[in-house]
C-alpha cells in the first residue's frame, strides 16, 4: 500500500495499524462477534486485549467465546478450541447461532467493495474465465445476511473500492434502500467500513457509504482518489483519534507473537 508507506514514514505507526486499531475500537464490550480470518481476527483480538475483554468471539470452525492468547493463523487453530467457552460443529455454528441472528456483529474483510457495501471475495474478471481466482464465499454471505450489524475492514484504493463488483459474494445494502427487506435478510447490514484512510458509514436515507472520519494524515482528496465512484463525504467529518501507546503496544504484541 502506498498509503501504508507514507503514513508509516510520517507517523509512529502504519496505516494498517491505524486501520486495525480503528476497527477494534468499533467493537463494544459485552457483545458477540462472528470473526473472519485475517484483519478482522486481528482487530477483534486487539479489542479483547484493550477495551473489550468480555467480547465473545465466534469462529466458523465452531469455537464459541474463543479467548486466544496469541493470534490464530487460521480460524481453526487449536488455541481457539482450547480457550473457547464451547466447541460445536460447523453445521451448528451456522444453523443454531448465526442464522437466527444471535450474533451482534459480523466482522468481514473484502477484495472488492461497492458503494452499497456489497462484497466480492470470489473472482476478479469474468466468473468462467477469471483473471484472478479468489478464495470464494466461505461463511461471508450468511454472516453478512444474519448478524445484527456488519463491520467491514478493507484497504481503500481504486482496485478495492469499485463502481461495480465483478461478483456479488455477500450482500450489504444490495441495490439500495429496501433491498435487504426484499431479500429477507434479517440483519441490519453493514454499519461501519474501516479502511486505511478513514471510516465510512451508510447514509440513513440512500444507504450509500459516506466518509465520516479521516485517520491522522489522511485527506479527503486521498479518500476520493481511492474510490472507484464519486465518494460521498459527511459534512460533520471527524478525525480519528491517533493510536494510543497502549493500543500500538498491544497490537504489535499480538502480531509479532
Amino acid at each position, binding site marked *: 500500500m502506498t498509503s501504508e508507506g507514507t503514513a508509516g514514514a510520517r507517523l509512529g505507526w502504519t496505516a494498517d495499524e491505524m486501520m486495525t486499531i480503528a476497527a477494534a475500537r468499533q467493537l463494544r464490550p459485552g457483545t458477540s462477534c462472528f470473526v473472519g480470518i485475517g484483519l478482522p481476527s486481528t482487530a477483534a483480538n486487539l479489542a479483547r486485549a484493550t477495551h473489550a475483554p468480555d467480547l465473545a468471539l465466534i469462529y466458523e470452525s465452531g469455537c464459541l467465546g474463543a479467548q486466544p492468547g496469541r493470534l490464530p493463523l487460521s480460524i481453526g487453530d487449536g488455541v481457539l478450541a482450547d480457550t473457547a467457552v464451547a466447541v460445536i460443529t*460447523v*453445521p451448528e455454528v451456522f444453523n443454531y447461532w448465526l442464522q437466527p441472528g444471535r450474533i451482534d456483529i459480523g466482522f468481514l474483510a473484502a477484495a472488492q467493495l461497492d458503494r452499497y457495501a456489497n462484497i466480492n471475495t470470489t473472482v476478479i474478471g469474468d466468473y468462467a474465465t477469471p483473471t484472478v*481466482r479468489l478464495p470464494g464465499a466461505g461463511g461471508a454471505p450468511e454472516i453478512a445476511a444474519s448478524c445484527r450489524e456488519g463491520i467491514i475492514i478493507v484497504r481503500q484504493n481504486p482496485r478495492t473500492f469499485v463502481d461495480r463488483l465483478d461478483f456479488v*459474494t455477500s450482500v450489504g445494502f444490495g441495490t439500495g434502500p429496501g433491498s435487504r427487506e426484499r431479500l429477507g435478510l434479517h440483519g441490519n447490514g453493514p454499519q461501519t467500513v474501516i479502511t486505511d484512510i478513514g471510516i465510512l458509514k451508510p447514509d440513513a436515507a440512500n444507504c450509500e457509504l459516506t466518509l465520516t472520519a479521516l485517520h491522522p494524515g489522511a485527506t479527503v482528496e486521498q479518500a476520493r482518489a481511492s474510490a472507484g465512484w464519486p465518494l460521498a463525504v459527511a459534512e460533520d467529518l471527524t478525525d480519528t483519534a491517533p493510536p494510543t501507546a497502549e493500543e500500538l503496544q498491544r497490537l504489535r504484541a499480538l502480531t509479532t507473537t
Partner: protein
Amino acid sequence: MAQLVSLHDAVAELVHDGDTMAMEGFTHLIPFAAAHEVIRQRRRDLVLVRLTPDLIYDQMIGMGCASKLVFSWGGNPGVGSLHRFRDAVTNGWPVPLEVEEHSHAGMANRYVAGASGLPFAVLRGYRGTDLMKQTATIASITCPFTGEELTAVPAMNPDVSVIHAQRADRDGNIQMWGITGVQKEAVLAAKRSLVTVEEIVDHLDPVPGQVILPTWSINAVALAPNGAHPSYAHGYYDRDNGFYQQWEQISRDRDSFTAWMTEHILQPTAADGGATEAAS
C-alpha cells in the same frame, strides 16, 4: 462392523476413479495421509468435495486426481492463495477443473441433508448473491405455513468420505475431539467411509468434547500416525503453520510443486509416508 485394514488396502478398496469423494476436517484433523495414498494410487476424475480445499486438495488437484471441485472457500488460511487450484481453474493445468461453488453454510447443510436421508436442506442463505446465478445446486423454496421464501440446497451424498480421528478401539469405534467440523455429517452422508486414526487402543476413555462414531456406521479404519500433518490432531501434535507458509513457495511454480510431490509423496520413503508404512 468396520474393518481394520492398512491405508493402502482401504484406499484400494474404497476409492474408485470417478468417485465423488469428501475428505473433511475443518483446519483440524485433515486426512492428509489418506490423500497422499490416493495420489500414490493414481486415482483420476474424482469429484472432490470439501468446504475448504486447503493444501490437501491443492495437492490432489495439482497431481491430476480431480475433474471437479465442490467447495466453499479455496484459500491457504492466513497465508494466501491455493496456486494449484488457481492454475487448474484459470489454465486447466494439469487437467481442467470444473467448480461448483457454495457458502460454508450451504455446504454444511448439504452434508446434514445427506446424513439425514433427506433430498435437500433449507437455509437462509445466498439470497442476493451471484452464487445463485453461477451454481445450479441452489434453489428457492416456500414455507408451507408462512409463505416465506427461503433457500434450498440438495443433499450431498459422496460415494466415499474420508476423515482422520484421534483414536479407534479394536472393534472399530471412532473417537475424535477438538474442532470436529462437519466430519460426522460427511461420514454419515457417504455410501462408503474410511477413517484414519492416530492410534488404535483397547478402550476409548471418554474425553470432553468427544464425537463417537460407532463401528457399525463406518466401513474401514486404517492406522495412520501423524496422518493429519501438516494439519493437526488435538492432543497429539500442533498444526505445522510453518509448512502452510512454505507451501506458498512450493506450490507457486508447477515444477517446484511436482518436484516436491515426487520427492515427498510419490516415493514411499517420503517424510510423511511413515503414516502409510505404519498402516501397511
